[in-house]
């Protein structure tokens, strides 16, 4: 186990860049991203194409084949991730850091029972008997508030609802007890009440086990109510880094614009403000764009 009291950050990212080679030339999806992560809940927010998902994938070593990752530092628990062989990567991924994806419909194996998938995830990283792994999986299903774990264990993914599917995903990703969870839009496919219930389960587990969470989402208000800190991304760069509780005091015009263009229940307006994109946002620092 890692030492919870150590001052070294869990994850250090400095000048992360992700390039893709496409028939139309190179595209830089992430341009010089830097942050450090402790045992906290960090939200990464941005619109489509901002590079938020590519950041998550790069940290996990899941960038597509035509992509190239460079960074001055990409260190997880003191280990340089960029120097890992594919085999070493597989030992880290799942066991020590793990990812929850958007839609359980596409990320669960449709021809394997739910229980077998969770057991497989556990035994991949722990040498235990099938019987013990089964008990662990059932306990984990109960932990994500599935009422009848025995029954759900034997079901196939198409037999469960979206909310239950996402709880199963969480069970599968958390059972190896990773230190870092990267959740990429984990609840965007869910209804609002179910979404909050799933987040509450994730929140409990992250707190209990002292895990770090990177929560990637387009939903700025939701992220600010759930996370400790927020990185706002625009065209591959972090344009603002702020405490979630201080979102209302955001200084970057992009962050302010994102908040402004949402319709609000408690204030009726005839026309919604629209985002006027400033070319300076692409390269300028926060000081430059607020001047």
């Amino acid at each position, binding site marked *: 186990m890692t030492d919870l009291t150590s001052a070294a950050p869990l994850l250090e990212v400095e000048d992360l860049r992700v390039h893709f080679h496409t028939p139309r030339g190179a595209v830089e999806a992430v341009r010089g991203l830097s942050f450090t992560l402790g045992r906290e809940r960090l939200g990464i927010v941005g619109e489509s194409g901002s590079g938020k998902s590519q950041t998550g994938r790069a940290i996990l070593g899941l960038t597509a084949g035509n992509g190239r990752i460079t960074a001055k530092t990409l260190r997880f628990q003191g280990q340089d991730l960029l120097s890992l062989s594919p085999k070493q990567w597989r030992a880290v991924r799942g066991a020590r850091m793990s990812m929850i994806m958007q839609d359980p419909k596409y990320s669960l194996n449709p021809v394997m029972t739910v229980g077998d998938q969770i057991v497989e995830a556990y035994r991949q990283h722990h040498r235990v008997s099938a019987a013990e792994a089964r008990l662990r999986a059932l306990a984990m299903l109960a932990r994500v508030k599935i009422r009848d774990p025995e029954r759900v264990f034997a079901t196939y993914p198409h037999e469960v609802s979206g909310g239950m599917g996402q709880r199963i995903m969480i069970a599968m990703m958390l059972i190896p007890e990773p230190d870092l969870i990267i959740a990429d839009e984990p609840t965007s496919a869910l209804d609002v009440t179910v979404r909050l219930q799933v*987040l509450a389960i994730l929140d409990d587990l992250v707190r209990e086990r002292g895990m770090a969470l990177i929560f990637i989402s387009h939903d700025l208000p939701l992220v600010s109510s759930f996370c400790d800190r927020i990185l706002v991304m625009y065209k591959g760069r972090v344009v603002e880094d702020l405490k979630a509780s201080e979102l209302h005091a955001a200084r970057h015009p992009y962050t302010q614009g994102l908040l402004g263009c*949402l319709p609000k229940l*408690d204030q009726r307006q005839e026309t919604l403000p629209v*985002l006027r994109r400033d070319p300076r946002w692409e390269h300028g620092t926060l000081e430059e764009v607020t001047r």
Partner: protein
Amino acid sequence: MSGAVLQAVPGTGIDVSGLNVWFGDHQVLHGVSFSVPEGGALGLVGESGSGKSTVLRALCGLVDQWSGALRIDGAELGKTRSRGFYRVVQMVFQDPFASLHPRHTIDRTLSEPAQVHGLDRVEERVVTALEQVGLDRSFRFRFPHQLSGGQRQRVAIARALMLEPRVLLLDEPTSALDVSIQAEVLNLLKGLQRDLGLTTLMVSHDLAVVSHMCDAVAIMNRGRILETIAAEDLAAGRVDHPYSRQLLRASSGFDRAVIDSFVDWE
């Protein structure tokens, strides 16, 4: 060619009463009733499986087994929809990536409804429809893959406007879009609603979007309308049904105390 709807008296909007819908043996709508005055806007809100989209599909004639009375502009709809019906009622779907033909140019996509209905001055109409949704002529000969999500949704709206309908059915028209693009599309829809006097029925899961766009909101759960309230009342939190209250609290973000108070409405 002119269907029953065309001869009806304009001025009464949409009237649905006692609508039941079955998918096989399973009843998905139970006695749904509401009306939208001409030029008015009603929002249908609910979670997945509440039947909100099924209401739109029933109006459009995309549902086989139903009972009840559906009236548009005072004329009762039968089991099939006439060609004239679609001159009056048009629909915009959720996903602009799925609702435009990938191998048709924007020009062809927009011309087709006019040609099907034997309208004249097709080219002029295409240009007008593009202008109405804020796209310039250069978009006419592009393909959907050359457009962004917001631009595609504008094309889908332009296509709905080609036949100069009086009633617009909107099925989650912005839920696939980024919030900055959502604001632009909502502003566009609201402007069209006002300028063309369109009667609008909008389905959404987002309470804030619906209360922004509509005069009144019907809250649905499990195939029933629980209550219909004015948008101002929704905005002020004046709702009667406990389910509506839960939905309202759920849309204000992550709050443990609120989440622990949730009740299952299954």
